[in-house]
């Protein structure tokens, strides 16, 4: 995680687009007192550098996956990265970090029933080679949460480039 060099205009741009990504370049340019070309260029650079991406956040999926769980995973140190990448491929898993501390991997998943959670934690993750132990903790109440700050992966960036090429 390297520190990005962003100036005040970049930050204002990110803030405006975090509220509504479908606002036109013209409107943003007008609001921020810069040219449309500047806005277009800045957005392109931020995307290419993997600092922002544009997506849809919905609440209607919540009816299907209404609860969040933290799954701490103990893994052979040699297998940590490969297991973390495999866990990241599970559709219910929204976040995966390699950690130092109580466990080697922390996965955050959304689930809709305890059976569903059992399937992810015990059947899918625990059965991966190299995994010794999983410890699950369920969020009873979420008091603070931010869906706007994410990890933009190399795969996300590759997809943006494909979209650009298509355009």
């Amino acid at each position, binding site marked *: 995680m390297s520190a990005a060099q962003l100036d005040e205009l970049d930050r204002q741009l990110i803030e405006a687009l975090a509220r509504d990504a479908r606002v036109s370049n013209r409107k943003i340019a007008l609001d921020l007192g810069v040219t449309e070309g500047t806005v277009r260029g800045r957005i392109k650079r931020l995307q290419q550098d993997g600092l922002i991406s544009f997506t849809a956040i919905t609440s209607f999926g919540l009816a299907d996956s209404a609860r969040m769980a933290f799954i701490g995973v103990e893994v052979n140190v040699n297998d940590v990265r490969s297991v973390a990448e495999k866990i990241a491929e599970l559709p219910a898993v929204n976040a995966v*970090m390699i950690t130092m501390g109580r466990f080697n991997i922390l996965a955050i998943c959304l689930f809709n029933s305890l059976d569903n959670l059992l399937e992810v934690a015990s059947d899918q993750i625990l059965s991966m080679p190299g995994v010794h132990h999983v410890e699950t903790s369920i969020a009873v*109440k979420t008091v603070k949460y931010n869906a706007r700050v994410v990890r933009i992966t190399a795969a996300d960036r590759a997809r943006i480039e494909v979209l650009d090429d298509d355009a």
Partner: protein
Amino acid sequence: MRHEHGWQLRALLMPPRRRTRSGQLDGLPNSEFVGSMSNDFQIDDADRAIVEQLRLNGRATNQQIANTLGLTAATVSARIRRMEEANKLRVVAVSDFSAHGYNVLMEVAIEVDGRPATDVIEELVQFPEVFAAHLVTGRYDIDILVALHDFDELPDLFLNKFGKIPGIRSMVPAIAVDVIKYKFDVAPIDAREEA
């Protein structure tokens, strides 16, 4: 391990949901996952297909989406507006941790003693370094995600800020050495975001 068999009871005893100040401080959605959604809002296959296209590229024009899906641009525009107005959809820019200069990420499990965990968490979320906070079942009572610009900020946060909150018995960190994935495309959407 003291909560091993007690969490279901604790969940039932949890006081009713209430609004917290944190959401207004940072202007972000701030509600629990269940309970705030109404089921009278219907979406159909066209809505789902539009959302799918927006997940791929939130800046795609109505016309581009319309062409891909065989709809008209007016339909796409109206469908998006309907979902947005019902607080079911937000099309947004998400930014990477590094765009905010967050170079240190850690999860911290907190054990609370002699005070309701709901009160302790209210104090924790006042700190901007606390990026996410949940009341959880299991061995610990609170699970937070801390985002820092630099490790130098750690002593002050733990000793002077968290250290002054009554009721924290212990804090056990797991330091993220690599974030493989962190993206939530389903999240509570709060009407207050409009403000």
